[in-house]
C-alpha cells in the first residue's frame, strides 16, 4: 500500500517534470496541458474469486496497457472458499474494492445487502444492452434495478466420448436429444464392460448437481423455485421425470458406481480417462480436458426428458461497490470489458464464452463448432434466483443434496414431495 503510494507519488513527480520540460521546450505546450488536465490518474481496486483468475487477469492486463496510466486496476484474486468472509469483513469496515465480483448465484444476496451501486441507467444506455447474458442480468437485478454485469460465464453442457460411441455402435455425430436417449446410450456404452461405464455424475456435490440437473428440468418447461426463490418446486412432474431417469440409470448400472461418492473435485477424471461415455460439465472443461486415443470429446446441449434443451449459466458477475469513490472510472472498465474488442480479442480468442449473445458466433469460435454450440446455449440458459441459493443448494449437509441422493440413489422419486418441503424450509429460513 505504502509502496504503491510512493510509486504513484513518483509517477506524479515524473509527470510534473515532463510538463515542465514541455513548457520549457515551448512548441507543443498546448497539447500536453490538455492531456495532463483531462483527468488525474485513478487507481481502482478489484476483487475476483480464484476460479475466474485467468480471465480476470487477462482483462485487467489488457485494460491497464490500453489506459496507459490514466486508469490503473489493481486486481486481487481471493481463494473462492474465503471470498465471502473477506467481502463481509470489508463491507463492515467500508473497505470494499471499487470493482467487486461475485459468484452469480450470490448476486441477489449482494444486491439485497447493498454491496453494489445501482447501474441500471448506465447498463440501459449500452448499445448492446439487450445482448448481455440474460440469465446473468436477471441474477444481478433486484427490485427492477441492475447492480452488476456478466464477468465470466460458465455454461453446463453434455459431454460425450465419441470413441466409446463408436465402440458401442452409436453414431458419434448424432448425440442424444432427449434425456431418455442419454439413458439408453449410457446403457449401451456400459454394456461394453471392461471398466467402461455409461455416465459419471458428481453425486455428492450439491452445487454440481444443481449445475447439471436443473437444465433438464428447465428444458421440460419446469422450474426449480418460484419467482423470488423462496419456495422449491422440485416436486413437479418435470423434476420427477428427470430424477426418475437418473434413478433408472443408477438402478440398471449404466451410471458409474463411484458417482455416488463424487464430491466434485475429481468429477472430470473418469471422463478424461476415457472410461465414461457421458459427463455433465461446465464450458471450461472443453479447454482443460485433453483428447487422446481413448477420448474424443463431443459436446451437446443438456436435453430434457422428452427433448428441449437448456443450460445453467454459472460464473461470476462484476459490479461497482457502493462505497467506491471512482464509480465513473470503474464503469469505464465495465463498459470496456463488454465491448467488441475485449469480448472478441480476450474472451473469444482465449477460449472463454463471450458474455454477449450477439457474439456467440465469431471468427475464433468458428474454428471449433463445439465452442459455437456452447456460446449459443447462453441465450436460452438460466441462473436460479434466490437470496439463499448457496445456503440451500451448495450446502454439503443441506436439504437439496439429500433430496437428489434419495431420489437417484435411494428410494426414488416418491420421496420428492417431502424432501421438497425441506428445501423450501431452507429457502424460507432467511426471509
Amino acid at each position, binding site marked *: 500500500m505504502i509502496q504503491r503510494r510512493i510509486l504513484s507519488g513518483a509517477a506524479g513527480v515524473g509527470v510534473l517534470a515532463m510538463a515542465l520540460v514541455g513548457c520549457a521546450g515551448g512548441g507543443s505546450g498546448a497539447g500536453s496541458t490538455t492531456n495532463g488536465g483531462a483527468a488525474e490518474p485513478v487507481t481502482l481496486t478489484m476483487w475476483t474469486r480464484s476460479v475466474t483468475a485467468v480471465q480476470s487477469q487477462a482483462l485487467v492486463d489488457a485494460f491497464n496497457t490500453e489506459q496507459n496510466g490514466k486508469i490503473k486496476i489493481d486486481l486481487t484474486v481471493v481463494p473462492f472458499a474465503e471470498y465471502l468472509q473477506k467481502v463481509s469483513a470489508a463491507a463492515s469496515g467500508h473497505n470494499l474494492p471499487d470493482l467487486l465480483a461475485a459468484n452469480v448465484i450470490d448476486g441477489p444476496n449482494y444486491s439485497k445487502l447493498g454491496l453494489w451501486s445501482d447501474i441500471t441507467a448506465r447498463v440501459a444506455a449500452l448499445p448492446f444492452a439487450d445482448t448481455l447474458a440474460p440469465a446473468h442480468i436477471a441474477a444481478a437485478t433486484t427490485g427492477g434495478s441492475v447492480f452488476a454485469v456478466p464477468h465470466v460465464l460458465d455454461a453446463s453442457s453434455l459431454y460425450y466420448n465419441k470413441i466409446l460411441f463408436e465402440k458401442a455402435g452409436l453414431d458419434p455425430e448424432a448425440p442424444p436429444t432427449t434425456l431418455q436417449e442419454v439413458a439408453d446410450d449410457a446403457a449401451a456404452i456400459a454394456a461394453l464392460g471392461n471398466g467402461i461405464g455409461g455416465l459419471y455424475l458428481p453425486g455428492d456435490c450439491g452445487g454440481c448437481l444443481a449445475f447439471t440437473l436443473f437444465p433438464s428440468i428447465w428444458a421440460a418447461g419446469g422450474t426449480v423455485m418460484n419467482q423470488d426463490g423462496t419456495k422449491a418446486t422440485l416436486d413437479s412432474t418435470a423434476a420427477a421425470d428427470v430424477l426418475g431417469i437418473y434413478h433408472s440409470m443408477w438402478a440398471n448400472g449404466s451410471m458409474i458406481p463411484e458417482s455416488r461418492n463424487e464430491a466434485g473435485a*475429481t468429477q472430470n477424471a473418469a471422463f478424461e480417462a476415457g472410461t465414461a461415455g457421458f459427463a455433465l460439465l461446465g464450458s471450461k472443461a472443453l479447454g482443460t480436458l485433453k483428447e487422446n486415443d481413448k477420448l474424443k470429446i463431443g459436446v451437446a446441449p443438456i436435453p430434457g426428458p422428452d427433448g428441449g434443451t437448456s443450460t445453467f449459466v454459472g460464473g461470476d458477475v462484476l459490479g461497482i461497490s457502493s462505497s467506491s469513490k471512482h464509480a465513473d472510472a470503474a464503469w469505464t472498465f465495465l463498459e470496456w470489458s463488454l465491448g467488441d474488442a475485449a469480448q472478441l480479442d480476450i474472451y473469444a480468442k482465449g477460449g472463454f464464452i463471450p458474455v454477449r449473445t450477439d457474439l456467440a458466433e465469431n471468427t475464433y469460435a468458428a474454428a471449433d463448432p463445439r465452442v459455437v454450440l456452447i456460446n449459443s446455449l447462453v441465450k436460452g440458459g438460466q441462473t436460479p434466483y434466490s437470496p439463499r441459493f448457496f445456503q440451500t443448494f451448495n450446502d454439503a449437509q443441506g436439504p437439496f443434496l439429500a433430496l437428489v441422493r434419495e431420489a437417484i440413489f435411494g428410494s426414488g422419486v416418491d420421496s420428492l414431495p417431502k424432501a421438497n418441503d425441506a428445501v423450501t424450509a431452507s429457502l424460507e429460513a432467511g426471509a
Partner: protein
Amino acid sequence: MARALAAHAGTGPRLSDVSKARSRRTSRRAWLYAAPAATVLVGMFVVPLGLAVWMSFHKWPLLGDSQPFNFPANYTAISDDRLFTAAVGFTVKYTAIITVVLLTLSFGLAVLVQESKRRVTGVLRTVFFLPVVTGLTTAALLFLGLLSPSAGPLDDLLAHFGAKVDWLGQPTTALISTVVMMTWRFAGFYMIILLAGLQAIPRELYEAASIDGANRWRALWSVTLPLMRSNLALCTVLIVTGGMVAFEQFYVMTRGGPDNSTVTMVMTIFRQAFSQFNLGVAAAMSVVVLLGLVVLNVVQMRLLGDTDEVAR
C-alpha cells in the same frame, strides 16, 4: 511460598521487613516474567473467547452488519437444528471408539517397544512415531487418495482377491476408515507418552512381583497399570478432548457423508458459520460445546486424577 515466607518472617522484626520487601520484589519479578505469556493468553484466548460469547448473544450474519441483541434466539436455534443433535450422538460414538482403539493400541505398541531387543527398540520407536510428524489434514488427504476407487491402489489390490469395499461410501465403512486413519496418525504419539511411563517403573517391582508368584498378566494388572495411571489419564484426556472437537479428519475424508452419517459437532459449527453464514448461531454452538468440554474434563480429572494422588 508466601506462607513459608510469612512463617520465616515471624523469627524477628528486622528480618521480617527485609524478607517482606524481598517477597514483594520476588512477586513483582514473577509477574514480569509471566507477563509475556499472560499477554499472549489474554490476547489469543481470553479476548476471542469473550468475543465469541458476545457474538452468540447477537444476530450476526456473515454478510451485512446489522447486529441486534437477540439472546437467547441463537441458543434456542441449536436445539431446533436436527443436524447438531444428531452430531452430538455421532461425536460421542466416535470419541468412545477412538479412545478405546487408540489407548489399547498405543499401550500395546509401548509394551512392544519396551520388551523388544535393544537394537530393534530405536527402529520400532521411529517407525511407530513417524506418522505423527505428518499434518492431520495431510494424513487425511493421503488416506482419501489411498481409499479412492479411481486413484487409490487399495481397490486394485483387493480386486485381485475378488473383494470390493466401498471405503467411504457407507456410514459404517466411512467411520471405520476414519478411525483407522486417526489410529495410524496418532498411535505413535500416545505410545511415546506411555513408553515414558513404562520406563519409569523400577525393574525391582517386577522382580518382587515374580517372587510373589505373579505371572506376566498379573504383573501387568497389579504393577504396570496402577503405576501408569497418570500417563494413561493424560492420554485419555487428550484423546477424549480431541475426539469431541474432531473436524479435519471428517471434513477431508467424508465431508460428513454419506448422507450426513459422519457429521461431528464442530462440522455443524463450521456449517452454520461458512455455509449458512450464521455466525451468531455458530458462536452459540461453540459456547455450548466449550461448556460441555469443561464439564467433561472436570469429570475426567476427578475420576482419573484424584485416585492418582491416593495411589501416590
